[in-house]
């Protein structure tokens, strides 16, 4: 199912020169390519996270509409929108995002247990943890993890329900080169398997993996490159 944004803007009340209204995202039209890795780069404060939060159903746009297939996201009840996020969206938040009272294992399975399912996902969780190289840390609490380990945990958590769309906000921020490559390759891989991945970052390196690349500056989104066949690159 496609994710489309029609003319979305987001304003915040914030002190600026003339008005108290600050526009973080300016009238963006956007469609997320299915089964592809889309990368948005841009300077800090350019509106990347704001844009991604709106697309992922976490922040109501001031103007414009977002459709997931035929559903208009923000016309749904909070209950339905939340369920939709749970079933179809995986989200890797910017910064640290462990639930500190749960172990790595419980964190990763939380998208299931949150809805009372204590059975599903265990096999896949094992697989994701080893893929992320944190299988040994299963029973460890987030406070005992490094920034990079935490990030890999939240990636595993975002993927556990095999979502149709994965949103990742600076997913390689605290990772070393080796792990950055692992993560980006993983995103590339799941995109090939049909998942639509939207990745936001201020590191240009990610663009090398991108099928589609955009640049955000001052709240305006511009397409940069489109790569239809990247197989040969790796």
């Amino acid at each position, binding site marked *: 199912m496609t994710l489309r944004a029609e003319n979305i803007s987001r304003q915040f009340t914030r002190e600026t020169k003339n008005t108290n209204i600050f526009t973080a995202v300016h009238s963006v039209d956007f469609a997320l390519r299915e089964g592809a890795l889309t990368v948005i780069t841009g300077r800090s404060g350019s509106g990347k996270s704001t844009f991604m*939060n709106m697309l992922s159903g*976490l922040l109501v746009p001031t103007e414009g509409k977002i459709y997931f297939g035929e559903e208009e996201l923000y016309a749904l009840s909070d209950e339905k929108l*939340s369920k939709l996020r749970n079933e179809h969206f995986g989200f890797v938040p910017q910064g640290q995002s462990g639930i500190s*009272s*749960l172990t790595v294992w419980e964190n990763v399975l939380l998208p299931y247990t949150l809805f009372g399912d204590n059975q599903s996902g265990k096999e896949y969780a094992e697989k994701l943890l080893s893929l992320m190289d944190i299988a040994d840390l299963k029973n460890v*609490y987030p406070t005992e993890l490094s920034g990079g380990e935490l990030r890999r945990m*939240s990636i595993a958590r975002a993927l556990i329900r095999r979502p149709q769309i994965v949103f990742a906000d600076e997913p390689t921020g605290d990772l070393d080169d080796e792990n950055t490559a692992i993560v980006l390759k993983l995103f590339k891989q799941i995109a090939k398997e049909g998942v639509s991945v939207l990745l936001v970052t201020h590191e240009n390196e990610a663009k090398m993996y991108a099928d589609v690349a955009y640049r955000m500056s001052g709240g305006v989104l511009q397409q940069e490159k489109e790569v239809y066949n990247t197989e040969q690159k790796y």
Partner: protein
Amino acid sequence: MKKITESLAYKNLSKRPGKTAALIVLSACLSFSILVGTLIVSSLKSGLASLQDRLGADIMVVPYEAITKSNLENIVLQGNTGYFYMDSSYLDKIAAMDGIGEISAQFYLASTSSGCCSVPVQIIGFDPETDFTITPWIRKSYGGKLQNMDIVVGNDLNAFVGDTLTFYGTDVHVAAKLEKTGTSLDTAVYTNEETIKKLIQSSLDKKLNTFEDVNPDHVISNILINVADGYTVEEVLNDINIHVRKVEAVRTKSMISGIAGSLQGVSEIIGILAAAVWLLAFVILVIAFAISVNGRRKEFAVLRTIGASRKKVSRIVMTEGLMVSVAGSLSGVALGILVIIPFSNLIESQLSLPFLLPAIGVIAFVSLLSFGVAVLAGTATSYVVGSKIGKADAGNLIKQDM
């Protein structure tokens, strides 16, 4: 635990034992202050009521020197020992006056330290024929008629029915133990006129009585009077004080009014103190809980990204609040009961005010009420904090870094 809201709330609390303990202590203060405040104030009130009952006479007539030499109020109200005598003819003289309804004489004697008691006890004799203050009280715990050489002991004395005590070499038999009044009357011994006369005689024989030349058959210590209908206490009181010499008629109400006054004061202070503790604990609880939840804004935002609805996030916060509140309020009530029951005697002697704990049913009711109010306050707090975090947009919450 099956439901995620409960298990997550529980884990959130148990993974932060220090903060959780602080919140529990705060909500314990809520129920503790209500329970202990209410129990102390009501115990003081019923203590006063029972003191008024026991001194259920309008006027007390005592020899003049009882006012000047011995401190009358200390003996009657504070449980100090002491005795004084006047000629028994005053009884007939006053009984014949106008406006006298009920009238009865009492006899005082203080023991030297005896078996039951490490300190001397006050022995009070009464005339079973005319007495109207002590007899109704005795009847509550003893149906029979007091025989000669029988005594009835106050609730605080370490003597039991069937014991034999010896006062001035004379054996007496404990026939009954009185109900607690929470007043100094609980430390006295009561007996009939015949018996106390024998005891006074024994004390004289042993040369242990401070009065050397009294004849027990012809003395009394005080006269208690209820005025007849149609007369005012004031009239009768003045009449006695003007026409009968060497005695002083005292209004019992005015004797108690000192106690009633300080009791009022202490009650108010305790009431204000309890209210202040409650309010302070409540304000700090609200702030502490809000800080605890706001410090985890990002965690709640993460839950929303995973698919928790606003309602579910609110519910987790409210469940945390409810758990803290129930645990705290329960411990507050338990602690309150643990403190107030064993220490009620200490409170009585420290405040030197009558202190009578209410019946167990009333204590249970007040406990339930304190628990309820405290849980309600905690729930309201977590409801407000929980709805607020639920209403915020996850996209805004998520920016705070942990």
